[in-house]
Every structure is written in C-alpha cells, then in structure tokens.
C-alpha cells in the first residue's frame, strides 16, 4: 500500500513539473507543426504527392520532435541528486525508470494525439487513415519513450556530446518506423502488423528498465 502511495505521489510530482514546463511541450508541438509546413511548402500543392508521402512525413517528424524532449527525462533529477533521494525513499532505479517512461508517455507524447489529426489535414490524409495513424502513434510513442529512457540514461554518462543520445534513438527506432507506417498504409494486414508493433514495444519495455537503471547506477557512482 505504501508503495502505491509512493508511486502516486511520484506521478503527482511529475505532473506538476510538466505543468510548470508547459513551454517545453509547446515548443515540441510547434516544431512538429513548423516542420510539417516546411514539407508542405517544399513538396508543393500536389494533393496526390502529399497523400502518398504524408504518413511517412508525419512519422519522421514525430520521431525527430521526440528526440527534442529527451533532455528532461533524467537530467534534472540526476544533476540535483533527487534521483538518489527518491531511490532511498524505497523505489528501485528500475521502477523509477518504468515510472518515468509512463509519465513521459502521458505528459509529453499524449498531447500529440491532438496535434496529429490537425497535421494530417494539412497533408490531406483520409479520415479513416487518421484513426489508424493515431493507433500506431500510441504504440509507437510507447516504443519511443522506452528508447528515450535508454538514450537519456546513457547521456548521463556522457557530458560532452549530447547529440549521441538522439542518434541512438533514431537507429533503434527504424523497425518501429517501418511497421508504424505500414500499419497505416497497408490496411489489409492491419492486425498482423499491429501485433508486430506491439511485440516491438514489449521487447523494448522489457529491456529499457534494466539498461537505463544500470546506466543511472554507473553515472551516479562516477559523478
């Protein structure tokens, strides 16, 4: 019961922090929209072309904008040692990572659920495809949050080159991009493709707490 209470108050804290940093979220969404505009202007007003490339463009930009928000994953709590105090409060590093992944998904990724339908209309995507896009986004962004936790935790060890973490996310998210775009474009094989996507999520969800927690431990002991 105490553990559930601790988890609850951890989420309350995460919510308050995200709420106070709303401008971060806003700049992420703004980046996403501006990049879509750039693509729309670059490709031109050809509806057919936009319709063909639209899903791919949206997914690539979601990936890019997700790398922007990685800094906030562990960095602040690591810098001021709040991670140690929370850990001493009775949560293992693995559990902290899982909670951070969930809160990152809820407070950073879910607002995109509103942004995506608006962006889809800009690139002329059909209504029924938007729903498929949202479903693939929910699972895909869970994968991105898991990968993000690994990259953010690895970045704690690396004080100079912050771009390296984003590169790791991009390389490992290639399978996710392939299947999430396919889910939307290949409606006939929807169920099998979505199963593969869920499988990918489960693999990353199983790996990321251990890898991230190991990196956090190492980073704290080398601080």
């Amino acid at each position, binding site marked *: 019961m*105490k553990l559930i*209470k*601790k988890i609850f*108050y*951890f989420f*309350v*804290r995460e919510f*308050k*922090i995200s709420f*106070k*940093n709303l401008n971060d979220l806003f700049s992420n969404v703004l980046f996403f929209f501006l990049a879509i505009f750039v693509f729309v202007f670059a490709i031109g007003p050809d509806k057919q072309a936009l319709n063909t490339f639209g899903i791919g463009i949206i997914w690539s930009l979601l990936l890019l904008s997700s790398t922007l928000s990685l800094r906030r994953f562990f960095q*602040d709590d690591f810098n*001021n*040692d*709040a991670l*140690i*105090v*929370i*850990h*001493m*409060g*009775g949560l293992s590093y693995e559990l902290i990572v899982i909670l951070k992944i969930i809160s990152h998904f809820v407070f950073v990724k879910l607002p995109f659920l509103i942004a995506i339908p608006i962006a889809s209309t800009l690139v002329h995507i059909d209504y029924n495809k938007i729903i498929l896009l949202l479903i693939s986004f929910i699972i895909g962004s869970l994968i991105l949050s898991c990968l993000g936790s690994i990259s953010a935790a690895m970045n704690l060890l690396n004080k100079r080159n912050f771009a390296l973490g984003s590169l790791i996310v991009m390389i490992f998210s290639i399978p996710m991009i392939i299947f999430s775009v396919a889910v939307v474009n290949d409606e006939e094989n929807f169920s099998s493709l979505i199963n593969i996507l869920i499988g990918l999520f489960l693999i990353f969800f199983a790996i990321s707490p251990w890898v991230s927690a190991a990196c956090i431990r190492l980073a*704290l*002991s080398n601080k």
Partner: protein
Amino acid sequence: MLLINNLHLIRSNKIIFNNINIAASSGKIILIKGRNGSGKTTLIKTILNIIEPTNGEIFWLGKRTKTNIFKFYKDTTYIIDKSTSVNNLTVLENIYFWKNFSSSAVSHDSIYKLLEILELKEYLNKQVMYLSLGEIKKLELIRLIIEEKKLWIMDEPYNNLDTNSIEIFNQTFSDHLNKGGIILFSSHFQPNIIGLEVILVN
C-alpha cells in the same frame, strides 16, 4: 547499529580512503572531517552504497547493507550538499512531496511551526529558484524532521547557514541524539557538539 569495517576505495590507481572503521550505536554523533577534495562526499556515498567500495563491509542492525539495501534506506535520511527540490515548484509543494512520499506522520501544524522557526514561512508560495543558498539549505534540512528516520547522514550540513540557524540545527541534532538517533556528517570544520567523534579523511 551502524558498523563499518575496514572500508577501502581505490579509483584510477589512487587511494581515496583506506582502513575506515566506524561503529555507531544509538545516541552517537560522528564527524567525517577533511580538507576540500579529500573524499568526504565519496566516503558518504560509499557508506550509502551509491559507490561500490574496493574492500570492506558495512552493516546496519547486524545485516550487510549491500544485500539488504532497502532495510538500510528505510532507517536513513540522506541530506545532500545540493538542492534536491524541484526549482520551479514552490517551497510548500516541495515539502509536501517529501512528506507524502515518505508517508510521514508529521502534522501540518508542526511543519508550519518549523517553517516559522527557520524563517521560511514568508516564502511558502515562492518558487525554490528564487530562494537564497542558505534558505535552500534550510529547506533541505527540513527533510530530516519530516522523514523521522533513525540514522541521519549529512554532507556538509553547515554550508551557507548563518550562526542563528546553525544553533537551531545543533539543538535539533542533540534532541535527535537524546531520542536515540545516530548522526553521521561531513564537514571541514568542527562544530561544538558534546560527544562528537571525529574521523579524519586525508
């Protein structure tokens, strides 16, 4: 209760500290004293199992802390020489997070009273980033009273505090010792506390 046996730490072929032995029973206060950069914080982190020692063992209530780490943490409050509060939350929000997180039974009234003694009451709804270094330190030290644990481990608790606050905290420390608590802290100067045992780190 806290027993540290022959603790060694070697990093990059350099001895950080060696042969540290500490035995602390109820009511004991121990100072880890040393110059800047002598490894006081590293020793505290090693005791707390954040850094793995090269050699040596640590026991809490007769059990090895390495294998029973959460039993050790359950009785320990660690005050770091940094602000662990969230900078853009208010003083009150930070205090209540630690209070709720540690399921503390301290009443609202006593928290307000404490804040009044520490002259923090007027900053209740101010964000932590606007506090001075001394006020941040006081906010950190409030966690000692909120968490109500037996073993207090502190890294440089006197930094940035004025003489008035130092007196208040020395009084708090002796009250805690009288109740059977244990205090282990690091500092580069020696405060005037009765029964203080000093361990030198070079």
